[in-house]
């Protein structure tokens, strides 16, 4: 589905990503974990077309999409749910969802809207409310719902759990599982490594802009370095909760 090779990107002259390579198979859920500032968001912004890579190659379903801007990538089936949600705050929930389908032109969106409302019933109740007045969890649901309105095949998620209560996180991840079961491919960035590795098939660990470790989620969760640094456990001690 997605093949990334030797990707370098940054802001102005500041280089953040160094030679990042990864792949996401069709229908897979892959996670990228790493500490604050390790470049996870920069990676997703580059894959979502908000940043232009300075080197490397990105292929989507075999086609080269390196440097394709966000507004075109979304038409090719890539949707990014950005860090911090980035909703259209003064606009209503309904308008945010309608904008989510912007890339599909005048095509009918009734079916998609119904699907999003089934996944997140609260968005139907709040349809006419300004997005900025939603609770944090509702905002995250709207951000995901907005992305789904473009009918993506690859969903890029940047820290969907950020700042949310455990119960809300659980309900959001339940929806993500449901989407996966329906065939959506997911690339998930999380700081909460435990949570991410529980839901993903495979994972990559980033440190200062590089991928330093990768493997099956279960292997990573059992890896001593990962446990020490990202899961808050000690060497050799069983801290799995």
């Amino acid at each position, binding site marked *: 589905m997605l093949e990334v090779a030797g990707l370098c990107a940054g802001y102005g002259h500041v280089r953040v990503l160094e030679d990042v390579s990864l792949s996401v198979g069709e229908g897979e859920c892959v996670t990228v974990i790493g500490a604050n500032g390790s470049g996870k968001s920069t990676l997703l912004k580059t894959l979502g077309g908000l940043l232009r890579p300075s080197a490397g190659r990105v292929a989507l379903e075999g086609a080269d999409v390196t440097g394709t801007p*966000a507004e075109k990538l979304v038409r090719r089936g890539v*949707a990014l749910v*950005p860090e911090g949600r*980035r909703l*259209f705050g*003064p606009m209503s929930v309904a308008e945010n969802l309608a*904008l989510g389908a*912007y890339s599909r032109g005048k095509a009918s969106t009734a079916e998609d809207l119904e699907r999003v409302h089934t996944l997140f019933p609260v968005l139907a109740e709040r349809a006419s409310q300004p997005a900025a007045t939603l609770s944090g969890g509702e905002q995250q649901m709207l951000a995901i719902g907005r992305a789904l309105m473009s009918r993506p095949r690859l969903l890029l998620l940047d820290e969907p759990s950020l700042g949310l209560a455990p119960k809300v996180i659980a309900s959001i991840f339940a929806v993500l599982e449901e989407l996966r079961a329906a065939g959506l491919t997911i690339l998930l960035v999380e700081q909460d490594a435990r949570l991410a590795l529980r839901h993903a098939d495979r994972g990559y660990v980033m440190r200062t802009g590089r991928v330093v470790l990768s493997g099956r989620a279960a292997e990573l969760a059992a890896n001593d370095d990962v446990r020490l640094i990202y899961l808050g456990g000690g060497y050799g001690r069983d801290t799995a909760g």
Partner: protein
Amino acid sequence: MGSREVSWELLQFGVAGLKNGAIYALVALGFTIVYASTNVINFAQGEFYMLGGMFATFVFAHLGLPLGLAAVAAVVATAATAVVFELLAVRPRVGGDPMTIIIVTVGGSVLLRSLARHAFGSDELALPAFSQGGSIMVGGAAIDRQTLWVWGIAALAVAALWVLYTRTRLGRAMRATAVDGEAARLVGIDTRLLVTVSFGLAAVLGAVAGLVVTPLTQTAYDVGAAIGLKGFAAAILGGLGNPVAAVVGGIVLGLLESLSVAFISSTYKDAIALAVLLLVLFLRPSGLLGRTRREKV
């Protein structure tokens, strides 16, 4: 002087204030629309006003088209000029340092002014009134027929803009881009194209304002700077980036100017805009109707 006469006189000042205010509102809308898509003040906005009047006088006097057609041609030509300016000078810099774009618009304003001087000369040019006949008397106050045109056309432009913003896909995309340009790109909005569209729209509004007042004030290649300052002051007064606020700001500024003429002296009329600008920037940078600048949601 009886109190009755005084109140008619006040009404007369009110009419003048509302006439200028409608013009300022159109120019302020131009500032606001470009600001919403770029976060940048377009200092060439006043030149669109100038070009509207100049193109209209030229087409009417030299090509001999009827007034209505000359007006339409002037609006189209001004919009085309603005779009070309945006594509050549602004677009390569979109996404970079906003200051660079601001400087480009200052340069564009100087360039458009000197081009207009070469093309149309440095004389004052006039257009006939849109409809013939004397002023309409409202009690003791006289309302020039052209003033009615100013109000009517300004109201029409504002209504059209309102429909665009609230009823169309393009308008919704423009509002979304004003809130968050990156999020807008993520849903598939071509925000660069919207910058071009916003320059075109701003030019249409400026040109309409410029040509509808030309029968009252005449026009010349150098009228852009002064009206630019006033439109900018009006936009700031209302709160940049909000179309409703731009209209309110324009009308309030027009009325303030008129009141200053009525109660102080006409000497200070043109200083009002500057005073308003400075006061608002010091006391309430978000404008009359503005909220304090929103944080990212």
